[in-house]
């Protein structure tokens, strides 16, 4: 328990979070995705966590995180169809309790980025609260929100709301930005796709006035 408290203190310390004035091209990011047994935060839980690190616009291909855990709640048939993980595969996998600290360590010093991150966060925070009595502390940014904000900017002064609603799920956006999507996907591959989406956004943002971590967190709040 001491070790956990120690980690918690370090985690809270300022130098483990990027400073708000840091240019977005110099910040470390961890782009994360999870797969769940379902969407109900009370009755479902995390099955896999995937994450890839970025230094500014560079995706660091060798610095990845991927864990499959034995979920706290049963795998449900609807979600099995989506992620393709069979109950037999998770037998004997570590519990989220054993993996969470490694994940927190992987995220140290980084802004955590995800697509529709609020869902992943709600599940992470459930476990954080259970295990550490607190919340996930890293600064977070959502690519879905970033995209919406950028759309708003380009609509700009016209002030009209675009009637034609487009799909904003990860794969529709990947297609829109010509990101290669392989047939098989899991939390890590989806995190990699999200990272490439974020990589493109990073190249557009400075021209729209988003230059620092503070600016980014403001427009991309999950």
């Amino acid at each position, binding site marked *: 328990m001491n070790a956990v408290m120690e980690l918690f203190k370090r985690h809270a310390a300022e130098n483990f979070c990027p400073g708000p004035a840091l240019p977005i091209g110099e910040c470390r990011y961890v782009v994360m995705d999870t797969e769940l047994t379902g969407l109900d935060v009370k009755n479902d839980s995390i099955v896999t966590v995937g994450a*890839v690190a970025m*230094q500014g*616009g*560079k*995706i*660091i*291909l*060798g610095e*990845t995180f*991927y864990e499959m855990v034995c979920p706290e709640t049963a795998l449900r048939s609807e979600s099995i169809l989506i992620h393709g993980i069979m109950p037999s595969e998770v037998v004997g996998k570590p519990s989220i309790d054993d993996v969470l600290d490694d994940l927190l360590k992987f995220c140290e010093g980084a802004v955590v980025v995800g697509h529709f991150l609020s869902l992943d966060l709600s599940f992470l925070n459930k476990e954080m609260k259970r295990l550490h009595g607190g919340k996930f502390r890293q600064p977070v940014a959502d690519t879905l929100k970033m995209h919406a904000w950028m759309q708003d900017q380009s609509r700009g002064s016209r002030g009209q709301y675009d009637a034609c609603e487009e799909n904003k799920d990860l794969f529709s956006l990947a297609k829109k930005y*010509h990101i*290669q999507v*392989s047939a*098989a996907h*899991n939390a*890590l*591959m989806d995190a*990699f796709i999200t990272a*490439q989406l974020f*990589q*493109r956004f990073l*190249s*557009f943002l400075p021209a729209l006035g988003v230059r620092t971590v503070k600016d980014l967190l403001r427009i991309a709040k999950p």
Partner: protein
Amino acid sequence: MLIAEDSILFLKNVPPFQFLSEADMKVVADNMTMEFYPRDAVILKQDDPASDSLRIVKKGGVKVSVRTDSGEDLTIDHRGEGDTFGLVSLMGQDRQKTTVVALEDTICYLLKRDQIKELLESNPSFTEYFLQTHFTTYVDKVYREMHSKSLFYGSSDHLLFTTPVGDIATKGVVTVREDTTIRDAAQEMSKNRISCLIVMDRNELPVGIVTDRDLREKVVARGRNVNDPVEDIMTLPLIRVDVKDYCFDAVLKMIKHNIHHILVIKDGKLKGILSNHDLMLLQGSSPLSFAKDLESQESIDGLVPVSAKINRVVGLLLKDGARASNITKIIAELNDRLVRKVLEFADRKFGKPPVPYCWLSFGSEGRKEQTFKTDQDNAIVYADPVGAAQEDATRKYFAAFALYVRDGLVKCGFPLCPADYMASNPKWCQPLSVWKRHFGGWINNPTPEAVLRSLIFFDFRPLHGDDSLGTGLREYLMKHVKGQNVFLAHMASVTVKNRPPLGFFKTFIVEKGGEHKDELNLKFRGIGPLVDLVRLFSLEAGISETSTLERIEAMKGKHPTIDSVGDELAQAFEFITLLRIHHQVEQIDLGEAPDNFINPSKMSNLEKKILKESFQIISKVQDGIIDLYGPGMVSG
């Protein structure tokens, strides 16, 4: 992990990474990062500090350009998927030497310098690939620099090597169906005032071509019925080039297939047609047309004006962007044809010789390394005559023959050899047995004069007549020089005596006085030592090639020094030759006589740097020779 698998799959198709072991490739994949550049983004900028990573294009494409001293932006290259960029600046840890811009949305893998260095140290095939492309890039860039200079002199020549076929091809080709009659086709041609038309099949695909020549040779000359379908007289197969191919590719195909028209294809569809005439218009005059001009001459007087144009070819090729080795190859080919033509005239004039003979070229002509016309260096070897009467007849025949050829060559612009190393000198017009005795004598008794003669004569190459006499002499030489360490040591001592001026760039070791004060003799101080040491190696290794670059190529795997520095020597040779040719063309443009003296103050920093590297490699190899034969080598 899956992400790395993705990049490994990619690397497996990309040289030199594909040469890596599975384990090394995994290490590379794990150490890579990935960047995205929107279209038009400047990825690397000339004169910025060098990037710390090599970039491999995963998707998209980039343009590499360089800004010249005169402020022009010259596009050097386009790089696409699987290509790398940034290596030269990366390894030099210098300033970035080029500007790289994304032509479209582009994704690159990045690999850090340390990682590349580790791979270079541990993987021979990886190293070989990069060394080759590395030095080539350098030479290419210098060439571009020179190229920009010659543009600066106001040349408006179109560029054989840089003009895509699509730019000059005749568009809007006239076509007819294959069942059209010959008469209708001919009428179509005269109506459109064209010399050829394309025959299409029922599916609108080109299947043949009909030219004026076909009408002349296959219809008129043979009295064929003009109501026959045109497909009966069309020429097959159709040779094609892509619109994006350079005109040089088209010229090569036209020479190869002996045709005057070539189809231009875009996206699989007929786009236009390119004729020899288009190419001549493009250039004013083409190397192809010179070769044909030469062949069609019937007298020495007819050759003279054609021969005078050969110098012009060098200038054209240089402006067109040919590499030095290509230029000297084309010059050698044209000069060979010229000399052969004079010899054919001599054959005709003097009738059948009493015994078969072979005309030998040596010196720079023997090595196919002439730039502009150099002194005649030639000899005759003939089959041993039988009996005193035949001996006498033979000697008389070849004396007159050689004199006629010598004077003919002088008329065509090849000056006399001051040292009289010519077939017209009875000493160098001998039967095979005497030549063998000469060679054997020089090898067995290497006096200074003998070694000097070996340097010149051992680069001989049969040019005309009975080749077997020339090859017989070559075989004799190779057999007898092998293991003749005393002779080789003498040759080695001469070879290392002429050191390249290494201090050139600090203290400028140049000519101390006279007309060429403060200038450097590129032929004597640069090319000479390199040619000499490659010749020495080729005698050691027992290979029969005579040109320096071919010798280097042939010795790979047969000579330890060539195995370790052969590519660098070849690049050095190519570079110094290019420098020399460029200098001479500049002189000719200014109306001066070409020489080998270059003034270092007129060279760019990059040129100086590479010339220095070239001298260093020559010097290093000379040191190796001294070590091998011992510092106390026979004194010259």
